[in-house]
């Protein structure tokens, strides 16, 4: 009787796990002792970090998309039907087309999405660059902008925690290039009492934002947006006027997670070391889908995937799951249009951004082109 690993989600985490597992378990796959399935609600795999560049016209949609089928190992089966229910007691995934998939091991890689509807008025009055259509809309607004007030706000939780920093530095450079920087009044707001959750990055911002003419308002958590008056008000009682509101909306996890009772707001309670769903022995959780208080970022999903694959293979072969995730995260951070820095940290090592350089910026641009090797399990 063959074993079946079902991976729900065809984003970076789900695809890496499928491909690495297919490589590692080649003999078992060939002998028919193992089946690997990926369930995805869309045929395309989108490179989300590219949206930051699409905002400035530096990337086109087609450069950021591949067919998921083309990225997957030929021995992995792709099911392009959304999962509508996960029954963890019966070890079943129910698809929208009525198919019920039994699994021995399940991987939840359902990700997260911006949920502007969580803040009254944000959908109508705000802009964001975390989704394709919204990103293109904001791009048009920025290109037609002749000057005025821009306010950036950050909801919780959200993916890519360094993006608010990056877009602020990049907009400063971009408006300078367009010759209207002196007409732009830019305010960066942040939910806590410093400029970023990462303290070294907050200190870096405190040192560099004044040089870039970026105004700041800390302890600012969006409560509501008034699209008619063009104001955004915080829970803390501060109201800011804007001409363009750039928001990082609060995020939600997948509906199927909520509907299956696996986690509030679509985020699954997860052991920070084993990456198994709390209380479960055969469900792993990867990337944005976990409720772990760590960065929701592609690199997090990538490093977690390595551990999950080792444990699944070890469990199937020896009945052991000895591998542990150490909390490793890596993020490039653009500090303008021509320079970047990076941070790397884990559960025991705090981050420490290095001096920004053109070299790191070019490294990030290169990675944007070769990203596809990551979900393929090569890089």
């Amino acid at each position, binding site marked *: 009787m063959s074993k079946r690993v079902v991976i729900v989600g065809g984003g970076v985490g789900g695809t890496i796990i499928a491909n690495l597992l297919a490589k590692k378990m080649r003999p078992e796959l060939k002998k028919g002792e193992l089946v690997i399935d990926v369930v995805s609600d869309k045929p395309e795999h989108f490179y989300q970090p590219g949206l930051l560049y699409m905002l400035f016209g530096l990337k086109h949609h087609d450069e950021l998309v591949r067919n998921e089928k083309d990225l997957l190992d030929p021995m992995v089966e792709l099911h392009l039907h959304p999962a509508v229910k996960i029954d963890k007691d019966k070890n079943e995934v129910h698809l929208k087309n009525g198919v019920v998939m039994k699994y021995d091991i399940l991987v939840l890689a359902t990700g997260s999405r911006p949920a502007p509807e969580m803040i009254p008025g944000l959908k109508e009055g705000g802009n964001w660059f975390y989704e394709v259509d919204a990103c293109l809309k904001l791009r048009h607004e920025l290109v037609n902008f002749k000057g005025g007030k821009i306010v950036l706000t950050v909801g*919780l*939780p959200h993916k890519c*925690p360094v993006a608010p920093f990056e877009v602020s530095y990049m907009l400063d450079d971009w408006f300078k290039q367009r010759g209207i920087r002196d007409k732009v009044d830019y305010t960066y707001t942040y*939910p*806590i*009492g410093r400029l970023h*959750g*990462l*303290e070294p990055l907050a200190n870096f911002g405190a040192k560099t934002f004044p040089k870039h003419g970026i105004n700041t308002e800390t*302890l600012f*958590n969006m*409560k509501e947006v008034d699209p008619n008056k063009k104001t955004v008000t915080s*829970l*803390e*009682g501060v109201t800011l006027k804007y001409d363009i509101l750039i928001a990082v909306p*609060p995020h939600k996890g997948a509906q199927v997670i909520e509907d299956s009772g696996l986690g*509030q*707001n679509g985020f699954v309670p997860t052991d*920070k070391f084993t990456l198994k769903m709390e209380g479960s022995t055969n469900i792993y959780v990867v990337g944005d889908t976990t409720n*772990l*208080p*760590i*960065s929701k970022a592609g690199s997090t999903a990538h490093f977690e995937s390595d551990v999950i694959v080792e444990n699944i293979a070890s469990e199937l072969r020896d009945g052991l799951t000895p591998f542990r995730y150490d*909390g490793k*995260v890596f993020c490039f951070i653009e500090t303008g249009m021509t320079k970047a820095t990076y941070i790397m*940290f884990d*559960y*025991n090592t*705090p*981050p420490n951004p290095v001096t920004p350089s053109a070299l790191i910026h070019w490294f990030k641009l290169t990675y944007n082109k070769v990203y596809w090797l990551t979900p393929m399990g090569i890089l």
Partner: protein
Amino acid sequence: MTEEELKQIKPTVTVDARGTYCPGPLMELIKEVRQQPVGSVIELISGDAGSAKDVPEWLNKVKQEFLGVIPGEGFWKIYAKKVKDM
């Protein structure tokens, strides 16, 4: 609340933010206070000494209830109650 009273609390949700640098303990607490229903008690375990100061300050600012803090060895258990919608 006294430390003894705090120890009796059965939190609605616990966030163990030790060893996590991003997004950080206060961000996690804000997220939970926003998501949980009114009446929920949130236990935040933080390895950041600043949390014992930042958290009550923020709760006071948004008129939610700070129940207290229990210092541990290299960490702090901080308790908050959501008393109104936000």
